[in-house]
């Protein structure tokens, strides 16, 4: 068979390996980005057929224009009060991240992950949901808990794995669980939460409930099989779920091209599944709010799931274990053409006369103080750097509802071991 081809003088095949536009030392130039003007995208009825919405998977829903005005059919027309609450939650999240990042650098905990630059995604989205709606987050949605006014000290106790950690020191920092906040336990295995969110939504529908579910993952994680299983289930059963993809351009050091971004958008993943897809300016809090509100109404009206791609940028490193200067241009962050989500919302609020620089500066001080106070409270219950805070017995608890003999035996063995060693 090989001989058939031998005489055909074919050019050798070549393998395409994606490469980001800029590497360290390169100037970042985003002029190739086509950014549609704010207000350009039509707002379909909530029961629109996915087929009629294809354009929304390739466009970009934007509300805030360059001057900070809210324009077009997606303007959610929120009260200044609501906008200020969203702004505050965004600022609080940034302050929280700053403080916890520093805490990690000071050796108070092992690890931390910031969401800097992405505050415009999950925070406005959470505001557009009902409190009873269930969130299946990835690890960069601390803003969901903050937008639900979850105690910061509780989150910090988890980060410190201290005696106040509701998870008994079992999870890595930031892998929160808060059932009362409708916040699912975070897994370190990427995208596993996606089918789980769909399952929760299906259960809610099967029970005739009115609550819906949301899932979050990064664009890199969309390559996981779980993501595609979840979309299949969501489509087949018209699950009342909102599937969020935060496209922050980077998955650790791999740019979005390695998840398929050179070929299409992430919102367009929806097209093949017959799901409504919306691509949204993720640095535009109003656009994100509006898209989520639309998707939530659609889900609640039994019109099925929506996939929302939040087009944004990860301003900081992937985590405290990462050095982004090793793989991307240092200029990217400042050259990012969609701006900073907090600055944009702030400009809008000033524009409508509901805010000013002084009040903003005062708010920044307040949220920093709020975070500081929470940290003091949490640190009273210990920090990871001080060693182990959980009673040793807890290690064997919760493996099963009731402890079987082999775990009892191992627990006793551990105690005997420590006693024999004089510790």
């Amino acid at each position, binding site marked *: 068979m090989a001989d058939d081809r031998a005489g055909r003088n074919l050019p050798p095949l070549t393998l395409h390996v994606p490469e980001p536009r800029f590497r360290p030392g390169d100037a970042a130039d985003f002029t190739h980005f086509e950014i549609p003007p704010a207000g350009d995208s039509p707002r379909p009825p909530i029961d629109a057929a996915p087929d009629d919405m294809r354009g929304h998977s390739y466009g970009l829903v934007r509300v805030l224009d360059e001057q900070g005005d809210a324009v077009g059919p997606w303007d959610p027309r929120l009260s200044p009060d609501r906008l200020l609450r969203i702004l505050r939650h965004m600022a609080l999240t940034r302050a929280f991240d700053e403080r916890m990042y520093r805490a990690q650098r000071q050796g108070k905990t092992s690890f931390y992950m910031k969401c800097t630059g992405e505050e415009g995604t999950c925070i406005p989205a959470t505001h557009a949901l009902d409190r009873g709606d269930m969130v299946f987050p990835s690890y960069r949605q601390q803003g969901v808990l903050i937008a639900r006014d979850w105690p910061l000290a509780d989150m910090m106790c988890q980060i410190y794995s201290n005696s106040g950690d*509701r*998870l008994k020191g079992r999870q890595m920092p930031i892998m929160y669980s808060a059932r009362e906040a409708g916040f699912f336990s975070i897994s370190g295995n990427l995208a*596993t939460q996606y089918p789980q969110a769909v*399952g*929760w939504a299906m259960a809610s529908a099967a029970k005739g409930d009115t609550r819906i579910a949301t899932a979050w993952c990064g664009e890199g994680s969309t390559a996981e099989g779980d993501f595609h299983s*979840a979309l*299949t289930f969501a489509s087949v059963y018209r699950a009342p779920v909102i599937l969020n993809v935060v496209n922050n351009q980077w998955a650790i050091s791999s740019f979005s091209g390695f998840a398929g971004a050179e070929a299409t958008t992430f919102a367009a993943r929806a097209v093949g599944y017959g799901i409504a897809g919306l691509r949204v300016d993720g640095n535009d809090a109003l656009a994100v709010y509006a898209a989520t509100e639309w998707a939530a109404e659609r889900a609640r009206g039994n019109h099925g799931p929506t996939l929302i791609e939040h087009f944004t940028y990860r301003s900081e490193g992937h985590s405290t274990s990462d050095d982004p200067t090793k793989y991307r241009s240092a200029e990217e962050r400042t050259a990012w053409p969609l701006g900073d989500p907090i600055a944009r919302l702030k400009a809008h609020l000033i524009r409508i006369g509901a805010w000013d620089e002084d009040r903003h500066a005062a708010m920044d001080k307040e949220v920093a103080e709020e975070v500081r106070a929470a940290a003091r409270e949490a640190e009273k219950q210990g920090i990871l750097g001080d060693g182990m805070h959980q009673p040793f017995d807890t290690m064997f608890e*919760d493996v099963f509802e009731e402890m079987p003999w082999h775990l009892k035996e191992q627990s006793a063995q551990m105690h005997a071991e420590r006693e024999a060693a004089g510790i």
Partner: protein
Amino acid sequence: MNMIQAINSAIDVCMDRDPDIIVTGEDVGYFGGVFKATEGLQRKYGKTRVFDTPITECGIIGVAVGMAAYGLRPVPEIQFADYIYPALDQIVSEAARLRYRSAGEYTAPITVRSPFGGGIFGGQTHSQSPEGIFTHVAGLKTVIPSTPYDAKGLLISAIEDNDPVIFFEPKRIYNGPFDGHYDRPVTPWAKHPASAVPEGHYRIPLGKAAIVRPGDDLTILAYGTMVHVAAGVIADSGVDAELIDLRTLVPLDIETIAASVRKTGRCIVVHEATKTSGFGAELSSLVQEHCFHSLEAPVQRVTGWDTPYPHSLEWAYFPGPVRLGQAIKRVMED
């Protein structure tokens, strides 16, 4: 009842008592499952409680975890245990650890049912016994029945249990016990006392083994199909062997096992799965740990070979009467 009917009856009884039980899986709805284990359930309980799924095992279990987080008790079917691997991550990293990692905030009371084991000319993709993979995972219970009566009682316990349970059904004995002589006709369950299965609710507790046949000279530890193979071999061997059906691998009934081996001084463990790192290795270790001073011979393992499951050479792979018979001789001579 045969084992399929007993399993069907167990799910039926549970669904009738608890509206939160939901049955999902490939072909389980209208059609009632490729082995008919869920037959009639959709008609009785409706399409929102019993329904077909797309062919994505990862999705089936992932969705079940989410349903469990909502408060339902899903009983997903994986059509053949050989296809459980795509779902492995959702079982191992998610369902098994949810209670632990959330310190009890969330639990996963899921019963994953799946036909397993060989002896039906299913080749290497319809014959595997992957129980050892799951017994190795903290947070999972693993249950394997060997009779219709046990299948129903154990499945009811599994479904009512608040932890995730892997429930492997030995498909070789769905329709009748099997003595390992593949050329002999299978006796239908109807002639077996364990086919007297009550219609209503009863439980067999997880973690309790059954002494199938008492004996003084040798202990044989088996589960699933191998219980019947062992029973046949014991009858032919003239050795007074005590046959223990483990029924649950995790949690394991160590007391019954240890008491038996201390009494008999000899032990053989039997399973269809490949030998290396199989559950037999665990059993043999436990026996050494608990009964070393009573042992009069090394513990023997009788298992499938460390090869993929072959199609045409199935009966050379299967740990049947010849392999077990020789092991009994070896152990008794020591």
